[in-house]
């Protein structure tokens, strides 16, 4: 059976060409000027571009708030779904991803329309709630998977040793579910930080997020500056991955 | 001359530098029920997998009816295996699992059906053809696994602990059925187990293995009654294993008493191991007419017989089995008949190693340096080092010793324990101790300088 390890080769090559090389190219383009010479200009320009920096700050703020909201709303949901005593089945968990079958942009437009009908002005508030709508399932899944896999004997042992239900949760269940929480954060924080169409639709174009800036630059052929902005994002991804303990276990397998 | 269906010649196998089989030689007769018996890690399953072809030997060869199997891949070997965890194909039903091999051989459909039906009847699973294999109980799955192997009419059936996952009652039933199947079919069975009782019940021949080496080959009765060494005696059934001295032919001294025995040819005043089965010690309430006496320490009912521990007047603890119970604290008389005393040559009388002098009073062996009494040696001299078993001190803290190791085996010898400790360097050191240790305990090893005997290496090795 050991010879089958060579079967990984096509995918290894594929990953090298379509994942590693493109990421390297972001860095390469970020440090080049139009004529292909090395420059720090693109990266420096970001820090002096007050529009870009303030968008970056706003995106960071929105992303953090969205992530926290998703965590606050999603954790209890994941816990309830994973807990057999509440009588939910896998069908319910599948119901949380089914809205994904309706095109995300159309769904977002409908959400924005609903907000207008209900009398909310499109702005930061609607942006936040719209994003939570879109990304909540990505928070619920990894946590749900983690809680489901967890051996119930841990919490039973804690109870047996005299922990109250609250203590069991705080001292056993929650710490053990942290890997799921981390990958949930990773799966929500990054996309919210960089969405473009969705933020435009939800605020009627009033609020730009960092993704929009990247898209605008790439679309107007400012590849090098666009690459530099992407590099800023990549650095942030790297930092977040480090903080959340890497992406060792993304827990997104076996959803369907 | 007997015809051998399977012969193993000088078979060796290592995994990542760890030797699991060393020079295995074995001959199996057509129609025999052979059991490979040993504790986990003794290499028994490796032998089976080598025969089946899932592993390639590093050295040596396997012959089937005189033909070398080395270059024959597993799917071309006329042998079939029954796996411990059944390994039924979960996506196929019972019928298709059994028909799998026949379909690959392109056996005509009608014949497949006939043969599958027949073999299902043999394993008493006739009404289960269309059942999903995962819906079957463990015992039923094992029957299907046996049927799936037998339907191909293999020359040899290999069974890898097939009953280990079943509960006791089911295991007993299946043992009887397996034995019946073997008698009926006349196929050679090679059976792997760590359960000595199962081996003794089922086999024509038992092969006892320990750490990749064959210890003893023989009929179940031979193995039980005449174990060749203390390992076999300890592994097969309950036994009292004691140190003794062969005074002369047919006369052996142990428990501080001399006994008549039937063994000869050991020489005079030679240290030996003596094995006495607990049911072979006669116990009685009177002391006159007994060979020696003792006090009953404990008495437990074991279903048919009572198991008692008796402390002899000289301080040995013996296990005795009898149909009658004896009161705890009472003095009893004991007799051992000559034919019930099994005398075995000692595998070793002291620890002995190759070493190197590291200075006038330092010697290196077992991968560590020890202090020793200065002698007629200089640095760099190769020497032979000997240490008596009872001079090897084991310590709780591994830092307290000159080196350390883990307890690999424990043998109770009536008034002391005989321990084998595997040191870090991979070598064994034996210790005679009164202290109680558990297997896999990590122990420090200490030897006093005056207890290390150093001899010049003789010969030009």
């Amino acid at each position: 059976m050991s010879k089958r390890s060579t079967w990984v080769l096509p995918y290894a090559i594929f990953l090298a060409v379509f994942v590693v090389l493109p990421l390297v190219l972001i860095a390469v383009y970020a440090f080049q000027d139009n004529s292909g010479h090395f420059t720090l200009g693109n990266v420096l320009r970001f820090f002096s571009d007050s529009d870009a920096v303030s968008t970056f700050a706003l995106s960071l703020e929105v992303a953090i708030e969205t992530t926290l909201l998703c965590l606050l709303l999603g954790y209890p949901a994941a816990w309830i779904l994973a807990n057999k005593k509440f009588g939910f089945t896998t069908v319910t968990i599948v119901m949380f991803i089914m809205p994904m079958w309706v095109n995300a942009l159309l769904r977002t437009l409908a959400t924005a329309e609903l907000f207008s009908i209900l009398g909310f002005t499109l702005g930061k508030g609607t942006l936040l709630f719209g994003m939570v709508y879109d990304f909540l399932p990505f928070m619920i899944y990894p946590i749900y998977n983690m809680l489901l896999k967890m051996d119930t004997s841990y919490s039973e042992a804690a109870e047996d040793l005299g922990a109250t239900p609250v203590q069991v949760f705080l001292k056993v269940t929650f710490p053990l579910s942290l890997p799921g929480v981390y990958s949930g954060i990773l799966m929500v924080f990054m996309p919210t930080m960089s969405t473009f169409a969705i933020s435009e639709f939800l605020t009627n174009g009033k609020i730009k997020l960092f993704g929009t800036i990247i898209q605008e630059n790439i679309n107007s052929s400012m590849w090098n500056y666009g690459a530099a902005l992407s590099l800023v994002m990549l650095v942030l991804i790297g930092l977040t991955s480090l903080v959340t303990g890497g992406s060792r276990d993304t827990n997104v397998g076996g959803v369907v | 001359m007997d015809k051998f269906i399977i012969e193993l010649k000088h078979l060796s196998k290592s995994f990542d530098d760890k030797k699991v089989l060393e020079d295995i030689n074995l001959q199996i007769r057509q129609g025999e029920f052979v059991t490979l018996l040993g504790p986990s890690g003794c290499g028994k399953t490796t032998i089976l997998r080598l025969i089946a072809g899932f592993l390639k030997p590093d050295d040596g060869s396997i012959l089937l009816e005189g033909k070398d199997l080395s270059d024959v891949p597993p799917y071309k070997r006329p042998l079939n295996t029954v796996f411990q965890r059944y390994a039924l194909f979960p996506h196929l039903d019972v019928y298709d699992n059994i028909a799998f091999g026949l379909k690959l051989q392109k056996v005509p459909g009608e014949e497949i059906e006939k043969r599958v039906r027949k073999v299902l009847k043999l394993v008493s699973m006739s009404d289960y053809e269309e059942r999903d294999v995962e819906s079957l109980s463990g015992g039923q799955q094992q029957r299907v696994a046996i049927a799936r192997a037998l339907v191909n009419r293999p020359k040899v059936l290999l069974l890898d602990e097939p009953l280990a996952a079943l509960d006791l009652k089911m295991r007993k039933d299946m043992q009887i059925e397996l034995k019946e199947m073997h008698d009926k079919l006349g196929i050679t069975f090679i059976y792997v187990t760590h359960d000595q009782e199962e081996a003794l019940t089922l086999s024509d021949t038992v092969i006892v293995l320990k750490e990749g080496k064959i210890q003893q080959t023989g009929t179940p009765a031979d193995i039980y009654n005449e174990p060749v060494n203390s390992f076999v005696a300890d592994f097969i059934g309950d036994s009292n294993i004691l140190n003794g001295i062969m005074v002369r032919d047919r006369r052996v001294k142990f428990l501080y008493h001399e006994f008549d025995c039937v063994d000869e040819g050991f020489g005079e005043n030679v240290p030996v191991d003596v094995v006495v089965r607990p049911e072979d010690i006669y116990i009685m309430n009177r002391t006159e007419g007994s060979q020696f006496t003792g006090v009953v320490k404990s008495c437990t009912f074991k279903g048919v017989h009572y198991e008692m521990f008796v402390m002899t007047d000289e301080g040995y603890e013996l296990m005795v089995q009898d149909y009658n119970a004896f009161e705890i604290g009472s003095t009893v008389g004991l007799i051992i008949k000559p034919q019930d005393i099994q005398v075995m040559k000692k595998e070793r009388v002291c620890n002995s190693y190759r070493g190197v002098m590291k200075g006038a009073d330092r010697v290196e062996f077992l991968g560590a340096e020890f202090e020793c009494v200065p002698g007629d040696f200089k640095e760099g001299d190769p020497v032979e080092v000997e240490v008596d078993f009872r001079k090897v001190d084991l310590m709780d803290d591994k830092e307290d010793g000159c080196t350390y190791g883990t307890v690999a085996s424990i043998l109770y010898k009536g008034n002391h324990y005989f321990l084998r400790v595997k040191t870090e360097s991979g070598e064994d050191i034996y210790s005679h101790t009164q202290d109680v240790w558990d297997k896999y305990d990590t122990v420090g090893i200490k030897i006093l300088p005056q207890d290390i005997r150093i001899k010049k290496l003789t010969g030009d090795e």
Partner: protein
Amino acid sequence: MKRFLARIYVWVLLVLLYAPVVFIAVCSFTESRVMGNWTGFSFKLYGNLFGGVMQGGSALLSAIENTLVIALLAALFSMLLGTLAAIGIHNLRGRKRNTMQLLNNIPIVNPDVITGVSLFLLFVFLKVSQGYVTVVLAHITFCTPFVVLNVMPRLTQINPNTYEAALDLGATPAQAFAKVLVPQLVPGMVSGFILAFTMSLDDFAVTFFTRGTIGLDTLSTYIYTDARKGGLTPELRPLMTLIFLLMLVLLVIVNVRANRRNKIEVEK
């Protein structure tokens, strides 16, 4: 009481999540051009959709076709590549295995925009003209990791002795693979395929950056352009409603079949 509150909580979340979807479905039964205006019940939009009479007309139809074809191709190739990769990774040990798993996670963790921009730069760098092929390749890039993650657990569940048992019963290694290993992997491959298909259908950003300038549109890019122009094609409402219902029916069928199998096993 606790149980009741918990159930209410989950259902409220679900109702909120489904609100936009239901809203789209409701609005598909009225003629109004603007989503949200109710001008009386009508099947006209459904009629337009099937009659092909609609704003955008053939452009929308070809966007639908592109979306489905790209999703099918991407899911199919991802399934094959991912399964092969999962088997390979399963047989790797130590550093190599960890490296492959880490690399496999990158496209999952990377936000769409980064994946899109990086692939855009790749195609620019390699001077590949962008269009259908580049979009499919890009989709395979972010779909395959999900297939790998779905097939890997299956591989660990397989009793390795079943492969040996097949050899033992006379199957060549190739036969043992096809007749014993693959059938046991199929459930993981299928769920990987469905997940990949879903991800591809829903993608906007990656397609946006890798479709080039040849005017290739998928539903997402079509909607994006359409919405930016101001008037969203009303027939998208019935279209999405139908796609959603179709997927729902598929899911119910798959689940009912799985349940029936389980039940039969339990009864036995």
